């Protein structure tokens, strides 16, 4: 059965596409993976895939298919068509509360919410949490925070992490992604951080995140 992973956050520039593209590049090694870019026409994931193809890195594109969805109906058609395959589907949501995001929340096996350790990003998450609570009335929703650009050595980051955990009622992924240039460098080259010749910390972090996500979604029937 296909597993759907939605990456969603209503504030732009928080790392949705970075996480989506990195997971897609790693998951394709396990099973055929679809990456659906719903943030059109911005299309960062689409651009990343285009760069990957342009570089003629044929091996890293094998097993990975890029789809786009400009409307929730288009996304619904993709999801219904892919549901009976044995694949992974990573959905890069748009940075807004709209029909597309609501559909992603309702149909995903796991929702990842990138969150930076800043008050502004935390405030922006409230609308999304309202919608997740609303969805929870109808279906068990597994939504988890992924700390991104996390400077865990700072007191403010640690305090914010504790506050969010206490007040949001959401689980958080054990793996936290640090504040690393390697993620930006890899994205701009159509690569994942695991493929890019950056520091091993970024390669290890993203592999750990991917493995943690797979453990969660593969536990669910």
């Amino acid at each position, binding site marked *: 059965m296909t597993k759907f992973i939605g990456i969603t956050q209503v504030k*732009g520039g928080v790392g949705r596409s970075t996480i989506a593209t990195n997971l897609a590049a790693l998951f394709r090694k396990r099973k055929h993976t679809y990456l659906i870019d719903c943030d059109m026409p911005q299309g960062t994931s689409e651009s990343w895939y285009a760069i990957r193809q342009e570089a003629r890195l044929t091996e890293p594109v094998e097993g990975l298919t890029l789809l786009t969805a400009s409307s929730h109906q288009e996304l619904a058609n993709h999801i219904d068509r892919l549901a009976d395959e044995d694949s992974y589907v990573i959905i890069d949501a748009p940075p*807004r509360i709209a029909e597309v995001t609501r*559909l992603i929340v309702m149909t995903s096996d796991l929702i990842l919410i990138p969150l930076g350790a800043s008050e502004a990003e935390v405030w922006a998450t*409230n609308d999304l949490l309202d919608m997740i609570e609303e969805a929870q009335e109808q279906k068990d929703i597994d939504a988890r925070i992924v700390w991104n650009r996390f400077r865990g050595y700072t007191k403010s980051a640690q305090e914010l992490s504790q506050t969010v955990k206490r007040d949001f009622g*959401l689980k958080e992924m054990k793996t936290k992604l640090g504040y690393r240039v390697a993620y930006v460098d890899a994205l701009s080259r159509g690569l994942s951080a695991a493929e890019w010749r950056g520091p091993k910390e970024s390669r290890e972090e993203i592999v750990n995140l991917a493995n943690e996500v797979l453990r969660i979604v593969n536990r669910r029937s």
Partner: protein
Amino acid sequence: MAAKRKSLRSKPQQRVSATEALSFAEKKAEKESKSGQIPDGDVRLTANMREDLHMKLKLAAVQRRTTIGELLEQLVEENL
């Protein structure tokens, strides 16, 4: 920080098809989101553009680690 939220209840896992989820997706949120508002001093621009040029613009933005909006601002400032 927002008031403490109730913990999300646990229910037996169920898969919802996209077709079934459409009714939830199309339901208007009760609380209007403030996300996506235009910052003070900015205007929102909608323009038609050739598809190949649009892809070129998107790729340039990603490679320069910036947004399309900021790249367009820079191009206007430099060329007009």
